[in-house]
């Protein structure tokens, strides 16, 4: 395997990880501040993608589509928070799992009811399509490079938001001591709605960005949701830094595992057996990674020690 191919695959893993980060950041934020397990986060991802596809189709503008995804998902998030989620904060994890599972059912079938059963069209905008040549002669799709940049910008933005703004102070306070922020005179209900909507908007943005190179369809959120959970658990729940590192780890493991495991096994087995076993192992790789991390560090890489 040539070095160029290796670099390209690492870039692919990185890009996949960064996309996971957008999903995971919202999820981990919501868990950190409100202590809520939100299975319906994948639905917000789907809503973002559908909003983007609908608006982009109607207006012809991808950018407008992205804005619609952010706004639509944030709105849906705020609405769900006001109607359902806020009744779940003092319930145990079990109730949260069930209630947000119910939300998945409602969102998925509701979307199918509105948009029909067929996938929608959403494509990479003209000015970002096609490959560019990187130093070293690597041809890499411009859009994927853009995704990496956007993801890193969002990570930077989140860092600044949390460390430098008033909202960030409140979020950090909320993670440490819930009674405390009430005593500080912060409107907790409002804070929670804002954080939830922010998480939703990130999920929606990620859905729209990914939707352009994948398939915008009902149920697209669940596989990503599981991966996002893997990411935040590896990183340590509540930690944005953990989410970023966890996401990149998962992205790299998944991408490189799929390539190298079958190759590595060819040293021991005949090619078709190696391909078959390697592919099976590759699909289990990230879960094995997650189990291993938790066995060694039961609260994730950057989680608060219990």
């Amino acid at each position, binding site marked *: 395997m040539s070095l160029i191919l290796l670099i390209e695959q690492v870039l692919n893993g990185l890009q996949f990880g960064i996309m996971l980060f957008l999903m995971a950041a919202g999820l981990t934020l919501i*868990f950190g501040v409100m202590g809520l*397990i939100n299975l319906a986060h994948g639905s917000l991802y789907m809503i973002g993608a559908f909003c983007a596809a609908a608006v982009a189709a109607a207006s012809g503008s991808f950018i407008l589509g992205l804005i619609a995804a952010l706004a639509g998902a944030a709105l849906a998030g705020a609405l769900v928070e006001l109607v*359902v989620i806020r*009744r*779940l904060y003092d*319930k145990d*994890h*079990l*109730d949260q*799992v*069930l*209630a947000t*599972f*119910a*939300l*998945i*059912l*409602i969102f*998925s*079938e*509701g979307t*199918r*009811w509105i948009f029909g059963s067929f996938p929608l069209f959403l494509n990479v905008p003209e000015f970002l399509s096609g490959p560019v040549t990187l130093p070293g002669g690597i041809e890499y799709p411009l859009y994927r490079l853009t995704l990496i940049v956007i993801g890193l910008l969002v990570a930077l933005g989140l860092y600044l938001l949390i460390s430098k703004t008033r909202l960030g102070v409140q979020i950090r306070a909320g993670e440490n001591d819930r009674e405390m922020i009430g005593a500080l005179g912060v409107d907790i209900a409002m804070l929670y709605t804002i954080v939830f909507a922010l998480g939703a908007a990130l999920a929606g943005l990620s859905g729209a960005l990914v939707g352009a190179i994948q398939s915008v369809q009902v149920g697209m959120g669940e596989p990503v949701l*599981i991966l996002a*959970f*893997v990411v935040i*658990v590896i990183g340590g*729940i509540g930690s944005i830094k953990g989410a970023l590192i966890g996401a990149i780890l998962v992205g790299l493991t998944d991408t490189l595992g799929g390539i190298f495991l079958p190759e590595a096994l060819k040293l021991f087995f005949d090619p078709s057996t190696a391909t*078959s076993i390697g*592919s*099976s192992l590759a*699909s*289990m790789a990230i*879960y*094995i990674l*997650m*189990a291993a991390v*938790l*066995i060694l560090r*039961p*609260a*994730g890489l950057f*989680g608060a020690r*219990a």
Partner: protein
Amino acid sequence: MIRETYVNALTLLLLVAIPLWAVFMDEPFTITLMTRAAIFAIAAIGLNIALGIGGLVSLGHAVFFGIGGYAMGILAHHAQTYTPLAEWPFLIDGTKSMPLIWLVAIACSALAALVIGALSLRTTGVYFIMITLAFGQMFFFFAISWAEYGGEDGLSIYIRNGFPGLNTLAPIQFYGLCFVLLCLVLLFAWKLSKSPFGLALNAARQAPMRVETVGLDPKRVKLVAFVISGVITGLAGALFADLNRFVSPTMFSWQTSGEIMIFIILGGVGRLFGPVVGALAFVALEHWLGGLSDYWHIYLGLLLLVIVLFGRGGLIGMVSGREAVHD
């Protein structure tokens, strides 16, 4: 408010009366639905021991359900193709006998639960939920790519396995078998909840430190509970595979884990009959709502939401109020 005991008695009565009525009315599909509910109930009773009494929120119980299913599928597959299961170190043949299949299902589930439990119990809370989910996904993807036993297509067993003295192909006889097992499992769960072990497990959920200071190991207590729980769910998996005469990786999916959990929450967490009532209600809902509209998932979702948000203690809690003090 109706006393929980009466609710339980009524549930048992329904479990007997509905299938008998179905035989009388020649409605065999109703019996099939009841069998499905009874098997789901067994699986959920298993989870309820870990979850309801031990507080172990496992989102990976599909592993045991699937292992039970595949134990049945693999043994019966070898029996129906007349190929040995293993030739080394000694010859093992497949079988079509339910009791044998159950034994294998139980042994395999126990082993899996021991390993998964020992590793997962290093974590707590959300991490525990997620690590059990991860194990579930591992088994799921493994089963999908396990070409020898059908991969994603799964395995079809053309004729239901046999039980001495019964014609298991007759729906009511197979139901009877599942019902008896359900009663046995219920009895065991009931005795367990009041036993010294149940006492320790119950305390390990509420106050692990306290259990430690009286000289018991709360983790070991929870691990044993997890194994018992996995075994019961595994048995249910073997029955479920026999009901359908079919196994597939779907049995390992996280949605299956979620559904087993839903039965418990729907019926009432930690209550003896919670899983039974929940499974009955879920199967009934699935059947009736499915006939109403293509978009019936929306109604199911709304209903679940209402129960979580407004019905503390599940369906049983809604009818009979807070759990009575044990005495």
